[in-house]
Protein backbone atom coordinates (compact mmCIF):
# COMPACT_ATOMS: atom_id res chain seq x y z
CA UNK A 1 0.00 0.00 0.00
CA UNK A 2 2.77 2.32 1.01
CA UNK A 3 4.90 1.43 -2.00
CA UNK A 4 1.90 1.83 -4.28
CA UNK A 5 1.23 5.33 -2.96
CA UNK A 6 4.87 6.30 -3.35
CA UNK A 7 4.82 5.01 -6.93
CA UNK A 8 1.64 6.99 -7.59
CA UNK A 9 3.28 10.21 -6.40
CA UNK A 10 6.36 9.53 -8.53
CA UNK A 11 4.27 8.85 -11.65
CA UNK A 12 2.20 12.02 -11.13
CA UNK A 13 5.38 14.07 -10.76
CA UNK A 14 6.86 12.45 -13.86
CA UNK A 15 3.78 13.20 -15.96
CA UNK A 16 3.65 16.81 -14.74
CA UNK A 17 7.31 17.42 -15.52
CA UNK A 18 7.12 15.77 -18.93
CA UNK A 19 4.00 17.72 -19.81
CA UNK A 20 5.65 21.03 -18.89
CA UNK A 21 9.07 20.39 -20.36
CA UNK A 22 8.36 18.34 -23.48
CA UNK A 23 6.88 21.22 -25.54
CA UNK A 24 9.76 23.47 -24.52
CA UNK A 25 12.30 20.83 -25.48
CA UNK A 26 10.45 20.28 -28.77
CA UNK A 27 11.16 23.86 -29.86
CA UNK A 28 14.89 23.21 -29.65
CA UNK A 29 14.72 19.66 -31.03
CA UNK A 30 12.75 20.39 -34.18
CA UNK A 31 15.17 22.83 -35.76
CA UNK A 32 18.99 22.75 -35.55
CA UNK A 33 20.38 25.56 -33.35
CA UNK A 34 22.22 27.10 -36.31
CA UNK A 35 18.97 27.62 -38.19
CA UNK A 36 17.38 29.13 -35.08
CA UNK A 37 20.11 31.75 -34.86
CA UNK A 38 19.80 32.34 -38.60
CA UNK A 39 16.06 32.91 -38.33
CA UNK A 40 16.68 35.65 -35.78
CA UNK A 41 18.32 37.61 -38.61
CA UNK A 42 15.04 37.87 -40.53
CA UNK A 43 13.82 41.44 -40.82
CA UNK A 44 10.44 40.46 -39.33
CA UNK A 45 12.26 39.21 -36.25
CA UNK A 46 14.61 42.18 -36.11
CA UNK A 47 11.75 44.67 -36.40
CA UNK A 48 9.73 42.86 -33.75
CA UNK A 49 12.75 42.71 -31.44
CA UNK A 50 13.28 46.47 -31.78
CA UNK A 51 9.59 47.24 -31.18
CA UNK A 52 9.55 44.95 -28.16
CA UNK A 53 12.70 46.42 -26.62
CA UNK A 54 11.59 50.00 -27.23
CA UNK A 55 8.03 49.64 -25.95
CA UNK A 56 8.96 47.41 -23.02
CA UNK A 57 11.75 49.76 -21.93
CA UNK A 58 9.47 52.80 -21.99
CA UNK A 59 6.56 50.97 -20.34
CA UNK A 60 8.81 49.44 -17.70
CA UNK A 61 10.51 52.76 -16.91
CA UNK A 62 7.11 54.39 -16.44
CA UNK A 63 5.89 51.52 -14.25
CA UNK A 64 9.02 51.73 -12.03
CA UNK A 65 8.98 55.51 -11.84
CA UNK A 66 5.33 55.80 -10.86
CA UNK A 67 4.83 52.40 -9.26
CA UNK A 68 7.68 52.62 -6.75
CA UNK A 69 6.56 55.76 -4.88
CA UNK A 70 2.91 54.67 -5.12
CA UNK A 71 3.76 51.25 -3.67
CA UNK A 72 5.72 52.97 -0.87
CA UNK A 73 2.72 55.08 0.06
CA UNK A 74 0.35 52.11 -0.01
CA UNK A 75 2.75 50.01 2.07
CA UNK A 76 3.39 52.63 4.77
CA UNK A 77 0.09 54.44 5.18
CA UNK A 78 -2.97 53.01 6.84
CA UNK A 79 -6.14 54.68 5.63
CA UNK A 80 -9.78 53.83 5.12
CA UNK A 81 -10.35 51.96 1.89
CA UNK A 82 -6.76 50.75 1.66
CA UNK A 83 -7.91 47.16 1.26
CA UNK A 84 -10.20 48.19 -1.59
CA UNK A 85 -7.38 50.03 -3.35
CA UNK A 86 -5.06 47.02 -3.01
CA UNK A 87 -7.71 44.71 -4.43
CA UNK A 88 -8.48 47.04 -7.34
CA UNK A 89 -4.79 47.17 -8.23
CA UNK A 90 -4.79 43.39 -8.52
CA UNK A 91 -7.92 43.22 -10.64
CA UNK A 92 -6.04 43.39 -13.98
CA UNK A 93 -4.14 40.27 -12.86
CA UNK A 94 -7.22 38.12 -13.08
CA UNK A 95 -8.60 39.69 -16.27
CA UNK A 96 -8.07 38.03 -19.64
CA UNK A 97 -5.64 40.23 -21.65
CA UNK A 98 -8.29 40.62 -24.35
CA UNK A 99 -10.50 42.35 -21.79
CA UNK A 100 -7.57 44.67 -20.98
CA UNK A 101 -7.34 45.53 -24.69
CA UNK A 102 -11.03 46.32 -24.91
CA UNK A 103 -10.85 48.33 -21.69
CA UNK A 104 -7.97 50.43 -23.06
CA UNK A 105 -10.03 51.03 -26.17
CA UNK A 106 -12.99 52.09 -24.09
CA UNK A 107 -10.78 54.59 -22.26
CA UNK A 108 -8.38 55.92 -24.91
CA UNK A 109 -10.05 54.98 -28.24
CA UNK A 110 -11.61 57.61 -30.53
CA UNK A 111 -15.07 56.75 -29.26
CA UNK A 112 -13.73 56.16 -25.77
CA UNK A 113 -14.05 57.95 -22.45
CA UNK A 114 -11.15 60.33 -23.15
CA UNK A 115 -11.57 60.19 -26.93
CA UNK A 116 -12.80 63.79 -27.38
CA UNK A 117 -10.13 65.25 -25.13
CA UNK A 118 -7.37 63.33 -26.92
CA UNK A 119 -8.83 64.30 -30.29
CA UNK A 120 -8.81 67.95 -29.29
CA UNK A 121 -5.13 67.62 -28.44
CA UNK A 122 -4.55 65.95 -31.78
CA UNK A 123 -3.45 62.76 -30.13
CA UNK A 124 -4.46 59.40 -31.47
CA UNK A 125 -3.40 56.41 -29.47
CA UNK A 126 -4.89 53.16 -30.82
CA UNK A 127 -2.69 51.28 -33.35
CA UNK A 128 0.41 53.34 -32.51
CA UNK A 129 3.51 52.48 -30.55
CA UNK A 130 2.06 54.50 -27.65
CA UNK A 131 -0.79 51.99 -27.60
CA UNK A 132 1.72 49.15 -27.22
CA UNK A 133 3.36 51.00 -24.32
CA UNK A 134 -0.01 51.52 -22.64
CA UNK A 135 -1.03 47.89 -23.13
CA UNK A 136 2.28 46.58 -21.78
CA UNK A 137 2.23 48.98 -18.81
CA UNK A 138 -1.37 48.07 -18.04
CA UNK A 139 -0.78 44.33 -17.83
CA UNK A 140 2.63 44.39 -16.17
CA UNK A 141 2.08 47.07 -13.51
CA UNK A 142 -0.06 44.91 -11.15
CA UNK A 143 2.81 42.42 -10.99
CA UNK A 144 5.21 45.16 -9.99
CA UNK A 145 2.78 46.76 -7.56
CA UNK A 146 2.14 43.56 -5.68
CA UNK A 147 5.81 42.73 -5.25
CA UNK A 148 6.85 46.31 -4.47
CA UNK A 149 4.19 46.80 -1.80
CA UNK A 150 5.23 43.52 -0.16
CA UNK A 151 8.90 44.59 -0.33
CA UNK A 152 8.21 47.94 1.35
CA UNK A 153 5.96 46.34 3.95
CA UNK A 154 8.82 44.04 4.88
CA UNK A 155 11.07 46.97 5.83
CA UNK A 156 11.30 47.12 9.64
CA UNK A 157 9.32 50.14 10.84
CA UNK A 158 11.77 50.66 13.70
CA UNK A 159 14.51 51.45 11.16
CA UNK A 160 12.28 54.15 9.70
CA UNK A 161 11.68 55.51 13.22
CA UNK A 162 15.43 55.43 13.87
CA UNK A 163 16.13 57.38 10.70
CA UNK A 164 13.60 60.03 11.68
CA UNK A 165 15.08 60.51 15.15
CA UNK A 166 18.41 60.99 13.37
CA UNK A 167 16.98 63.99 11.57
CA UNK A 168 15.96 62.42 8.28
CA UNK A 169 12.85 63.83 6.64
CA UNK A 170 10.44 61.63 4.65
CA UNK A 171 12.34 61.92 1.35
CA UNK A 172 15.65 60.98 2.97
CA UNK A 173 14.05 58.08 4.84
CA UNK A 174 12.74 56.81 1.51
CA UNK A 175 16.03 57.20 -0.36
CA UNK A 176 18.48 56.08 2.32
CA UNK A 177 16.51 53.45 4.26
CA UNK A 178 13.34 52.14 2.61
CA UNK A 179 14.62 51.96 -0.96
CA UNK A 180 17.92 50.17 -0.29
CA UNK A 181 16.31 47.73 2.15
CA UNK A 182 13.48 46.91 -0.25
CA UNK A 183 15.85 46.72 -3.24
CA UNK A 184 15.90 42.91 -3.38
CA UNK A 185 12.13 42.60 -3.42
CA UNK A 186 11.79 45.51 -5.85
CA UNK A 187 14.28 43.86 -8.20
CA UNK A 188 12.38 40.58 -8.14
CA UNK A 189 9.05 42.34 -8.73
CA UNK A 190 10.61 44.37 -11.52
CA UNK A 191 11.98 41.25 -13.27
CA UNK A 192 8.64 39.49 -13.01
CA UNK A 193 6.78 42.49 -14.40
CA UNK A 194 9.29 42.90 -17.22
CA UNK A 195 8.85 39.25 -18.23
CA UNK A 196 5.08 39.64 -18.17
CA UNK A 197 5.31 42.83 -20.26
CA UNK A 198 7.60 41.27 -22.87
CA UNK A 199 5.17 38.41 -23.33
CA UNK A 200 2.11 40.67 -23.61
CA UNK A 201 -0.12 39.60 -26.52
CA UNK A 202 -3.89 39.90 -26.10
CA UNK A 203 -4.22 43.52 -25.04
CA UNK A 204 -1.65 44.65 -27.59
CA UNK A 205 -3.20 42.93 -30.61
CA UNK A 206 -6.61 44.44 -29.82
CA UNK A 207 -5.50 47.94 -28.81
CA UNK A 208 -2.41 48.37 -30.99
CA UNK A 209 -2.79 45.89 -33.82
CA UNK A 210 0.12 43.98 -35.36
CA UNK A 211 1.90 46.31 -37.76
CA UNK A 212 5.41 45.16 -38.58
CA UNK A 213 8.03 47.68 -37.43
CA UNK A 214 5.43 49.77 -35.56
CA UNK A 215 3.31 47.76 -33.16
CA UNK A 216 4.34 44.18 -33.91
CA UNK A 217 6.13 42.97 -30.79
CA UNK A 218 7.86 39.60 -30.54
CA UNK A 219 4.79 37.66 -29.34
CA UNK A 220 2.73 39.19 -32.15
CA UNK A 221 5.46 38.27 -34.62
CA UNK A 222 5.30 34.66 -33.45
CA UNK A 223 1.58 34.67 -34.19
CA UNK A 224 2.10 36.33 -37.60
CA UNK A 225 4.89 33.96 -38.62
CA UNK A 226 3.07 30.89 -37.32
CA UNK A 227 1.39 30.30 -40.71
CA UNK A 228 3.99 31.85 -43.00
CA UNK A 229 7.32 30.68 -41.67
CA UNK A 230 7.11 28.23 -38.82
CA UNK A 231 10.90 28.18 -38.28
CA UNK A 232 10.95 31.91 -37.55
CA UNK A 233 8.12 31.46 -35.09
CA UNK A 234 10.18 28.72 -33.46
CA UNK A 235 13.30 30.88 -33.38
CA UNK A 236 11.51 33.75 -31.63
CA UNK A 237 9.99 31.27 -29.17
CA UNK A 238 13.42 29.85 -28.48
CA UNK A 239 14.68 33.38 -27.80
CA UNK A 240 11.89 33.88 -25.25
CA UNK A 241 12.74 30.64 -23.52
CA UNK A 242 16.40 31.59 -23.22
CA UNK A 243 15.60 35.07 -21.89
CA UNK A 244 13.01 33.66 -19.49
CA UNK A 245 15.36 30.99 -18.20
CA UNK A 246 18.11 33.58 -17.66
CA UNK A 247 15.69 35.77 -15.72
CA UNK A 248 14.60 32.90 -13.51
CA UNK A 249 18.15 31.74 -12.84
CA UNK A 250 19.16 35.30 -11.95
CA UNK A 251 16.26 35.60 -9.52
CA UNK A 252 16.97 32.25 -7.88
CA UNK A 253 20.67 32.95 -7.72
CA UNK A 254 20.03 36.34 -6.19
CA UNK A 255 17.69 34.81 -3.61
CA UNK A 256 20.21 32.12 -2.84
CA UNK A 257 23.11 34.58 -2.52
CA UNK A 258 21.08 36.76 -0.19
CA UNK A 259 20.21 33.78 1.93
CA UNK A 260 23.84 32.67 1.94
CA UNK A 261 25.10 36.09 3.00
CA UNK A 262 22.54 36.35 5.80
CA UNK A 263 23.43 32.87 6.94
CA UNK A 264 27.14 33.59 6.80
CA UNK A 265 26.89 36.83 8.77
CA UNK A 266 24.62 35.24 11.42
CA UNK A 267 27.09 32.45 11.74
CA UNK A 268 30.02 34.84 12.00
CA UNK A 269 28.21 36.94 14.63
CA UNK A 270 27.31 33.94 16.76
CA UNK A 271 30.81 32.51 16.77
CA UNK A 272 32.57 35.81 17.48
CA UNK A 273 30.43 36.80 20.45
Amino acid at each position, binding site marked *: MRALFAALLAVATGIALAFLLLPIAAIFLRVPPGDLVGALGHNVTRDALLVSIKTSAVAHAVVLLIGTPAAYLLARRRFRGRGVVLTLIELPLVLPPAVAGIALFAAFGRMGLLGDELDALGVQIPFTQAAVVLAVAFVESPFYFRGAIAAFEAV*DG*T*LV*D*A*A*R*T*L*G*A*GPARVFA*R*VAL*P*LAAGGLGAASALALARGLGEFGATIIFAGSLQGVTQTLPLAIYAQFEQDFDTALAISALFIVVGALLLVTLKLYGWLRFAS*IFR*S*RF*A*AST*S*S
Partner: protein
Amino acid sequence: MASLRLDLSLPLRGFDLELALEAGPETVALVGPSGAGKTSVLRAIAGLARPARGTISCGDEIWFDADRRVDRRPEERSVGFVFQEYALFPHLNVEQNVSFGGARPDRLLWRLSIEHLAKAKPSELSGGERQRVALARALARGPRVLLLDEPMAALDPHTRGKVRAELHDLLRELALPALLVTHDFEDAAALADRVGVLVEGRLRQLGAPAELLGAPADPFVAEFAGANVLEGIAESGPDGLTRFHLDGERIVYSTDEARGRAALVVYPWDVSLARRAAEDSALNHLEGEIVSLVQVGNRVRVRLPFLTAEITASSAERLALRPREVVFASFKATQARLLPAD
Protein backbone atom coordinates in the same frame (compact mmCIF):
# COMPACT_ATOMS: atom_id res chain seq x y z
CA MET B 1 21.92 72.22 30.45
CA ALA B 2 18.27 72.08 29.38
CA SER B 3 15.88 69.96 31.33
CA LEU B 4 13.21 67.72 29.89
CA ARG B 5 9.66 68.27 31.10
CA LEU B 6 6.67 66.17 30.26
CA ASP B 7 3.13 65.94 31.44
CA LEU B 8 1.10 63.81 29.13
CA SER B 9 -1.72 61.40 28.61
CA LEU B 10 -1.45 58.78 25.89
CA PRO B 11 -4.15 56.18 25.23
CA LEU B 12 -2.70 52.69 24.97
CA ARG B 13 -4.37 49.34 24.49
CA GLY B 14 -6.27 48.66 27.69
CA PHE B 15 -5.34 51.79 29.67
CA ASP B 16 -4.17 55.40 29.43
CA LEU B 17 -0.57 56.28 30.09
CA GLU B 18 -0.50 59.26 32.46
CA LEU B 19 2.89 60.63 33.33
CA ALA B 20 4.38 63.84 34.62
CA LEU B 21 8.14 64.01 34.92
CA GLU B 22 10.96 66.52 34.95
CA ALA B 23 14.54 65.45 34.34
CA GLY B 24 17.60 67.65 34.64
CA PRO B 25 21.08 66.52 33.59
CA GLU B 26 20.55 63.11 35.16
CA THR B 27 19.56 59.59 34.26
CA VAL B 28 16.00 58.62 35.10
CA ALA B 29 15.07 54.97 34.73
CA LEU B 30 11.54 53.83 34.07
CA VAL B 31 11.07 50.27 35.27
CA GLY B 32 8.03 48.07 35.33
CA PRO B 33 6.53 44.94 33.89
CA SER B 34 6.31 44.59 30.11
CA GLY B 35 3.25 46.30 28.70
CA ALA B 36 3.31 49.01 31.37
CA GLY B 37 3.78 51.73 28.76
CA LYS B 38 7.50 52.39 29.29
CA THR B 39 8.46 52.35 25.62
CA SER B 40 5.45 54.53 24.76
CA VAL B 41 6.87 57.27 27.01
CA LEU B 42 10.09 57.32 24.97
CA ARG B 43 8.18 57.23 21.68
CA ALA B 44 6.03 60.16 22.76
CA ILE B 45 9.10 62.22 23.68
CA ALA B 46 10.74 61.41 20.33
CA GLY B 47 7.59 62.34 18.43
CA LEU B 48 6.94 58.79 17.23
CA ALA B 49 3.67 58.59 19.20
CA ARG B 50 1.21 61.41 19.70
CA PRO B 51 -0.25 61.96 23.18
CA ALA B 52 -3.93 62.81 23.46
CA ARG B 53 -3.26 65.58 25.99
CA GLY B 54 -0.39 67.35 27.63
CA THR B 55 2.95 68.97 26.93
CA ILE B 56 6.53 67.93 26.25
CA SER B 57 9.31 70.47 26.34
CA CYS B 58 13.07 70.59 26.44
CA GLY B 59 14.55 73.74 27.96
CA ASP B 60 12.74 76.64 26.27
CA GLU B 61 11.72 74.52 23.25
CA ILE B 62 8.17 73.23 23.20
CA TRP B 63 8.07 69.90 21.37
CA PHE B 64 4.45 69.08 22.00
CA ASP B 65 1.51 71.01 23.33
CA ALA B 66 -1.91 69.54 22.67
CA ASP B 67 -3.77 72.75 23.57
CA ARG B 68 -1.63 74.98 21.37
CA ARG B 69 -1.50 72.37 18.61
CA VAL B 70 2.27 72.18 18.69
CA ASP B 71 3.66 68.83 17.54
CA ARG B 72 7.20 68.90 16.26
CA ARG B 73 8.15 66.11 13.90
CA PRO B 74 10.66 63.51 15.16
CA GLU B 75 13.38 64.90 12.87
CA GLU B 76 12.88 68.34 14.45
CA ARG B 77 13.29 67.21 18.05
CA SER B 78 16.79 66.89 19.31
CA VAL B 79 16.71 63.38 20.74
CA GLY B 80 19.18 60.53 20.64
CA PHE B 81 17.21 57.30 20.65
CA VAL B 82 18.80 53.93 21.38
CA PHE B 83 16.14 51.45 20.29
CA GLN B 84 15.48 48.05 21.74
CA GLU B 85 17.58 45.57 19.70
CA TYR B 86 19.36 48.77 18.52
CA ALA B 87 17.69 49.11 15.05
CA LEU B 88 21.02 49.60 13.26
CA PHE B 89 20.71 50.02 9.49
CA PRO B 90 21.69 46.58 8.19
CA HIS B 91 22.76 47.85 4.76
CA LEU B 92 25.18 50.44 6.14
CA ASN B 93 28.49 49.85 7.89
CA VAL B 94 29.28 51.13 11.37
CA GLU B 95 30.73 54.43 10.16
CA GLN B 96 27.77 55.06 7.83
CA ASN B 97 25.34 54.21 10.61
CA VAL B 98 26.96 56.67 12.99
CA SER B 99 27.20 59.44 10.38
CA PHE B 100 23.63 58.90 9.13
CA GLY B 101 22.50 62.09 10.85
CA GLY B 102 25.19 64.08 9.04
CA ALA B 103 27.86 64.42 11.73
CA ARG B 104 31.46 63.21 11.38
CA PRO B 105 31.77 59.86 13.14
CA ASP B 106 35.49 59.79 14.06
CA ARG B 107 35.37 61.22 17.57
CA LEU B 108 32.42 59.09 18.65
CA LEU B 109 33.89 55.92 17.21
CA TRP B 110 37.01 56.70 19.21
CA ARG B 111 35.11 57.59 22.38
CA LEU B 112 33.18 54.32 22.27
CA SER B 113 36.28 52.30 21.23
CA ILE B 114 34.79 51.06 17.99
CA GLU B 115 37.14 52.70 15.44
CA HIS B 116 38.39 49.30 14.41
CA LEU B 117 34.83 48.31 13.47
CA ALA B 118 34.22 51.33 11.21
CA LYS B 119 33.89 49.27 8.05
CA ALA B 120 31.97 46.34 9.59
CA LYS B 121 28.31 45.66 8.90
CA PRO B 122 25.96 45.40 11.92
CA SER B 123 25.38 41.69 11.21
CA GLU B 124 29.09 41.06 11.89
CA LEU B 125 29.03 42.62 15.37
CA SER B 126 28.48 41.11 18.81
CA GLY B 127 25.68 42.36 21.05
CA GLY B 128 27.96 44.64 23.07
CA GLU B 129 29.48 46.13 19.93
CA ARG B 130 26.05 46.79 18.45
CA GLN B 131 25.05 48.61 21.60
CA ARG B 132 28.07 50.90 21.30
CA VAL B 133 27.30 51.62 17.66
CA ALA B 134 23.70 52.43 18.60
CA LEU B 135 24.95 54.78 21.33
CA ALA B 136 27.44 56.46 18.98
CA ARG B 137 24.73 56.92 16.37
CA ALA B 138 22.27 58.34 18.91
CA LEU B 139 24.90 60.82 20.18
CA ALA B 140 26.22 61.82 16.76
CA ARG B 141 23.96 64.83 16.31
CA GLY B 142 24.63 66.14 19.80
CA PRO B 143 21.09 65.54 21.10
CA ARG B 144 19.65 67.50 24.01
CA VAL B 145 17.91 64.40 25.38
CA LEU B 146 18.97 60.76 25.35
CA LEU B 147 16.37 57.99 25.26
CA LEU B 148 17.42 54.38 25.88
CA ASP B 149 14.95 51.54 25.39
CA GLU B 150 16.10 48.34 27.11
CA PRO B 151 19.75 48.94 26.15
CA MET B 152 20.91 45.88 28.10
CA ALA B 153 18.20 43.39 27.14
CA ALA B 154 19.93 42.06 24.03
CA LEU B 155 23.18 41.29 25.86
CA ASP B 156 24.24 37.95 27.24
CA PRO B 157 24.78 37.80 31.01
CA HIS B 158 28.58 37.79 31.03
CA THR B 159 29.02 40.94 28.90
CA ARG B 160 26.20 42.68 30.74
CA GLY B 161 28.19 43.72 33.79
CA LYS B 162 31.01 45.28 31.80
CA VAL B 163 28.69 47.06 29.38
CA ARG B 164 26.66 48.36 32.29
CA ALA B 165 29.72 49.90 33.91
CA GLU B 166 30.74 51.57 30.62
CA LEU B 167 27.26 52.90 30.04
CA HIS B 168 27.20 54.26 33.59
CA ASP B 169 30.42 56.21 32.98
CA LEU B 170 29.21 57.50 29.63
CA LEU B 171 25.92 58.74 31.06
CA ARG B 172 27.75 60.59 33.87
CA GLU B 173 30.14 62.15 31.38
CA LEU B 174 27.36 63.32 29.04
CA ALA B 175 25.32 64.92 31.82
CA LEU B 176 22.23 65.03 29.59
CA PRO B 177 18.65 64.39 30.59
CA ALA B 178 18.57 60.66 29.86
CA LEU B 179 15.53 58.44 30.11
CA LEU B 180 16.23 54.75 30.39
CA VAL B 181 13.60 52.07 30.06
CA THR B 182 14.27 48.65 31.54
CA HIS B 183 12.39 45.77 33.13
CA ASP B 184 15.41 45.02 35.30
CA PHE B 185 15.59 46.84 38.62
CA GLU B 186 19.28 46.04 39.03
CA ASP B 187 20.12 47.75 35.74
CA ALA B 188 18.00 50.71 36.74
CA ALA B 189 19.60 51.00 40.19
CA ALA B 190 23.09 50.74 38.72
CA LEU B 191 22.62 53.29 35.94
CA ALA B 192 20.07 55.81 37.12
CA ASP B 193 20.03 58.68 39.59
CA ARG B 194 16.30 58.26 39.99
CA VAL B 195 14.06 55.32 39.29
CA GLY B 196 10.35 55.45 38.48
CA VAL B 197 8.18 52.35 38.75
CA LEU B 198 5.55 52.37 36.02
CA VAL B 199 2.60 49.98 36.26
CA GLU B 200 -0.30 50.06 33.81
CA GLY B 201 0.55 53.57 32.69
CA ARG B 202 0.85 55.10 36.18
CA LEU B 203 3.95 56.03 38.10
CA ARG B 204 3.76 54.16 41.41
CA GLN B 205 6.90 55.71 42.86
CA LEU B 206 9.77 57.91 41.73
CA GLY B 207 12.94 58.31 43.73
CA ALA B 208 16.59 57.44 44.18
CA PRO B 209 17.23 53.68 44.06
CA ALA B 210 18.02 53.70 47.78
CA GLU B 211 14.69 55.36 48.52
CA LEU B 212 12.77 52.73 46.58
CA LEU B 213 14.62 49.97 48.38
CA GLY B 214 14.40 51.57 51.82
CA ALA B 215 10.86 52.90 51.64
CA PRO B 216 8.91 51.24 48.86
CA ALA B 217 5.55 52.92 48.34
CA ASP B 218 3.63 49.69 47.91
CA PRO B 219 4.17 45.92 47.83
CA PHE B 220 4.45 45.96 44.04
CA VAL B 221 7.37 48.41 44.11
CA ALA B 222 9.00 46.33 46.84
CA GLU B 223 8.62 43.13 44.85
CA PHE B 224 9.97 44.84 41.76
CA ALA B 225 12.98 46.06 43.72
CA GLY B 226 13.69 42.42 44.54
CA ALA B 227 12.15 42.12 48.01
CA ASN B 228 10.27 39.20 49.49
CA VAL B 229 6.70 40.31 49.94
CA LEU B 230 4.76 38.20 52.45
CA GLU B 231 1.06 38.71 53.00
CA GLY B 232 -0.55 38.36 56.38
CA ILE B 233 -2.38 40.02 59.24
CA ALA B 234 -0.72 42.54 61.55
CA GLU B 235 -1.67 43.17 65.16
CA SER B 236 -0.22 44.90 68.17
CA GLY B 237 2.57 42.82 69.76
CA PRO B 238 4.80 43.00 72.85
CA ASP B 239 7.27 45.87 73.51
CA GLY B 240 5.78 48.14 70.86
CA LEU B 241 6.46 45.63 68.11
CA THR B 242 3.94 44.52 65.53
CA ARG B 243 3.10 40.84 65.47
CA PHE B 244 2.55 39.62 61.92
CA HIS B 245 0.66 36.40 61.21
CA LEU B 246 1.73 35.00 57.85
CA ASP B 247 -0.99 33.19 55.92
CA GLY B 248 -0.34 29.92 57.73
CA GLU B 249 0.74 29.44 61.30
CA ARG B 250 4.05 31.26 61.32
CA ILE B 251 4.53 34.49 63.22
CA VAL B 252 7.15 37.19 62.64
CA TYR B 253 7.73 40.61 64.17
CA SER B 254 8.37 44.04 62.73
CA THR B 255 9.30 47.40 64.24
CA ASP B 256 6.94 49.09 61.74
CA GLU B 257 3.38 49.78 62.75
CA ALA B 258 0.41 48.28 60.95
CA ARG B 259 -2.95 46.75 61.78
CA GLY B 260 -5.05 44.30 59.80
CA ARG B 261 -4.19 42.93 56.36
CA ALA B 262 -0.71 44.03 55.36
CA ALA B 263 2.37 43.04 53.40
CA LEU B 264 5.70 42.33 55.06
CA VAL B 265 8.72 43.29 53.02
CA VAL B 266 12.18 41.86 53.62
CA TYR B 267 15.11 41.90 51.21
CA PRO B 268 16.84 38.62 50.36
CA TRP B 269 20.22 40.06 51.37
CA ASP B 270 18.86 40.80 54.87
CA VAL B 271 17.95 37.16 55.43
CA SER B 272 20.58 34.84 56.91
CA LEU B 273 20.47 31.06 56.90
CA ALA B 274 21.55 28.50 59.50
CA ARG B 275 21.46 24.74 59.95
CA ARG B 276 20.02 25.03 63.49
CA ALA B 277 17.65 27.55 65.00
CA ALA B 278 20.03 30.32 66.01
CA GLU B 279 20.00 32.02 69.39
CA ASP B 280 20.84 35.51 68.26
CA SER B 281 19.36 38.98 68.36
CA ALA B 282 17.18 38.38 65.29
CA LEU B 283 13.57 37.95 66.34
CA ASN B 284 12.34 36.22 63.25
CA HIS B 285 13.19 32.60 62.51
CA LEU B 286 11.39 30.61 59.85
CA GLU B 287 12.05 26.95 59.19
CA GLY B 288 11.75 25.55 55.67
CA GLU B 289 12.97 23.10 53.06
CA ILE B 290 15.27 24.47 50.34
CA VAL B 291 13.46 24.58 46.99
CA SER B 292 16.38 25.65 44.82
CA LEU B 293 19.86 27.23 44.86
CA VAL B 294 20.96 29.57 42.08
CA GLN B 295 24.41 31.08 41.94
CA VAL B 296 24.54 34.72 40.72
CA GLY B 297 28.16 35.84 40.52
CA ASN B 298 29.64 35.56 44.03
CA ARG B 299 26.23 35.18 45.64
CA VAL B 300 23.74 32.34 45.94
CA ARG B 301 19.99 32.85 45.91
CA VAL B 302 18.38 30.22 48.11
CA ARG B 303 14.67 29.80 47.56
CA LEU B 304 12.54 28.56 50.47
CA PRO B 305 8.79 27.98 50.22
CA PHE B 306 7.92 31.38 51.75
CA LEU B 307 10.91 33.59 50.95
CA THR B 308 14.24 33.87 49.19
CA ALA B 309 17.55 34.49 50.92
CA GLU B 310 20.67 35.79 49.26
CA ILE B 311 23.94 34.73 50.88
CA THR B 312 27.55 34.70 49.75
CA ALA B 313 28.72 31.77 47.71
CA SER B 314 31.32 30.97 50.37
CA SER B 315 28.66 30.80 53.11
CA ALA B 316 26.57 28.49 50.95
CA GLU B 317 29.60 26.28 50.52
CA ARG B 318 30.47 26.36 54.23
CA LEU B 319 26.93 25.31 55.14
CA ALA B 320 26.95 22.70 52.32
CA LEU B 321 23.38 23.60 51.38
CA ARG B 322 21.48 21.21 49.09
CA PRO B 323 17.93 21.28 47.74
CA ARG B 324 15.27 19.62 49.98
CA GLU B 325 17.36 20.14 53.13
CA VAL B 326 15.77 21.97 56.06
CA VAL B 327 17.26 25.32 57.10
CA PHE B 328 16.35 28.22 59.39
CA ALA B 329 15.97 31.66 57.86
CA SER B 330 16.47 34.64 60.21
CA PHE B 331 15.98 38.36 59.83
CA LYS B 332 15.72 41.21 62.31
CA ALA B 333 12.43 42.88 63.13
CA THR B 334 14.12 46.18 62.17
CA GLN B 335 14.61 44.85 58.63
CA ALA B 336 10.99 43.82 58.16
CA ARG B 337 9.00 46.66 56.55
CA LEU B 338 5.22 46.62 56.79
CA LEU B 339 3.11 48.10 53.99
CA PRO B 340 -0.64 48.26 53.50
CA ALA B 341 -1.70 45.31 51.32
CA ASP B 342 -2.40 45.98 47.63
